[in-house]
């Protein structure tokens, strides 16, 4: 069975005003929004540009807006967002520079992730009979940028470090047992455009497709920062 679908795609090419293109495609309702976009590229418009790699929510590169909410289009089946004969609107993520069509530039985002320096592979609890250094697992954050697109603060303050980097900072702070590294992380986040810029809207946590709970982690860092300051007041070392 296939459905008749209309895709409204936000288009942008350098030097041209943004526009919306409409495409009609036939798609199995169990295929994903990303399958639809790829099909349009393959069969109708070779100028359409979009980011994608793994198609199973692990690489984080395909994040876009679909019907006005952030999604990983690789894991959203078209039947979850529309019906036979329906329309799906797709566009680039908010709050990122747009390179072309659905492609956004993640440069600044990755720069901040790199600054924080949380390894994407972290140590996990070893299985009972498994040597510890042999067992590491990927962190949940797939660096998709969805949380930054959803955040009302990032929408008006591009210098805000943003939920993903702050959530990574939380992990890095708690994974590290080196007090210098902990201090480096605190210096990075305990400032105006760091943890204190957040207005507790929790949109990042609601939008994150990978259960990172960035907002909760920002609050955790705030608590830590406060505790450290109070301890300092009494001449104690940071916890």
């Amino acid at each position, binding site marked *: 069975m296939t459905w008749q679908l209309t895709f409204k795609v936000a288009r942008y*090419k*350098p*030097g041209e005003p943004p526009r919306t293109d409409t495409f009609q495609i036939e798609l199995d309702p*169990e295929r*994903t929004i990303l399958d639809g976009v*790829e*099909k349009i*590229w*393959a*069969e109708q418009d*070779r*100028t359409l*540009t*979009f*980011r*994608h*790699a*793994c*198609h*199973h*929510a*692990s*690489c984080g*590169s395909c994040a876009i807006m679909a019907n006005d909410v952030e999604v990983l289009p*690789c*894991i959203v089946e078209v039947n979850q967002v529309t019906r036979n004969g329906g329309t799906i609107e797709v566009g680039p993520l908010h709050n990122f520079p747009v*390179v*072309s069509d659905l*492609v956004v530039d*993640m*440069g600044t*985002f*990755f*720069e901040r*992730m*790199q600054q924080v320096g949380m*390894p*994407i*592979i972290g140590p996990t609890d070893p*299985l*009972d*009979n*498994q040597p510890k250094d*042999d*067992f*590491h*697992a*990927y962190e*949940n954050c*797939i660096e998709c940028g969805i949380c930054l697109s959803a955040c009302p603060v990032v929408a008006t303050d591009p210098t805000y470090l943003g939920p993903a980097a702050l959530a990574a900072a939380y992990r890095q702070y708690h994974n590290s047992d080196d007090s210098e590294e902990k201090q480096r992380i605190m210096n990075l986040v305990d400032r105006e455009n760091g943890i204190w810029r957040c207005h507790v809207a929790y949109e990042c946590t609601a939008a994150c497709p*990978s*259960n990172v709970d960035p907002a909760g982690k920002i609050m955790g860092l705030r608590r830590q920062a406060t505790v450290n300051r109070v301890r300092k007041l009494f001449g104690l070392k940071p916890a």
Partner: protein
Amino acid sequence: MNMSEHSQKYHVVVIGAGSTGAAVAHDLALRGFKVTVLERGEIASGTTGRNHCLLHSGGRYCVKDQESAVECIEENMILRKIMPEAMELNGGLFVAVNDEDMAYKQSFIEGCEATGIPYKELNASEARRREPYLSEKTLGAVWVPDGVFEPMRMCMSFLASAKQNGAMVRPYVEVTGLQVEDQRVVAVEVWDRISGEESVIHADLVVNAAGPWAGMITDMAGVDVPVVATPGVMVSMTGRYCQLVVNRLNVSSDGDIVVPQRETSIIGTSSWTVEDADYIEMPEDHIQMMYDRGSEMMPILREVEPRGIFAVARPLIGRIGEDEREIARTFKCFDHADRDGVEGFVTIAGGKTTTARAMAEGTVDVVCAKLDLEIPCATKETQLLSYRAYYTI
């Protein structure tokens, strides 16, 4: 002898930024060449990004295709040292769930011995203690050093290092033609899919690493390579139900591997051939087969929801019509001067993401030989940059 001042004179264009092109670019840049990578989509948007993410130990090939198995275990041991960031070194189990599997165990272990794959036998209760979701029918298992990688981050890591050494990486630039003069490829015609501009890029040598699309590139030079686009289906299930990679202890077949990645378990894969790999229609029965076969090893997989279903084509070397699984997975580097009398043009195809570094080494050796340079490969010992550096260099 430092020959890089000689290699600097040469501009090598690499077509494709999958694992093969990315590794080739890194090797070329490390040996001092001036490198431009042209990729029509995003990094790893072809086969590489969408593969099964298994850092092969070689176990899968150790009985029927020992050449591949040796390649895998060697590269596995190298990659885990030079690119620890892009892989989960969790190990893998080959699991027997019936008598036929158990009967295969002996030849499997002999294969491991013959190809140098470290292994450890586990009895059924040990195996199920490690992996509680394994079938109650489990009769035994063998541990091997499988791993799980993130293909896109692997490519970015190779490319970050290549950029560090001066390479230029251009996504969304599609090769539309090759200019051939006097039986020599001298330039590539490109179309920038972002700006719409068409231009011509001079090249002293072109490396075609376009994966299952390699044949379209060779067509542009009027030559031919026997690369067959052979897709496979994978289903990523919601929830991580194994910590180690779970393989079926038997002759390679469909749906016989479960790769855990983050909070998912990916079942794969199958095999058929297509003419055009741009958009692959997935056969429903292949998807169903993943649930059926995967749940033979881990019954829970029948009860949970899928998260992502996808397919992508292998660039296998062979001809359409041959039994796809029988085509050796080992890669091949075609020097079109020897094959077809066209100079300045090399195609690298086949292989696996696990063996990308070795494929690159072989290819750049060929490039050096063609240009009469003797520069040793250093990728085995060179620590790669973080994938994040791809965006910051």
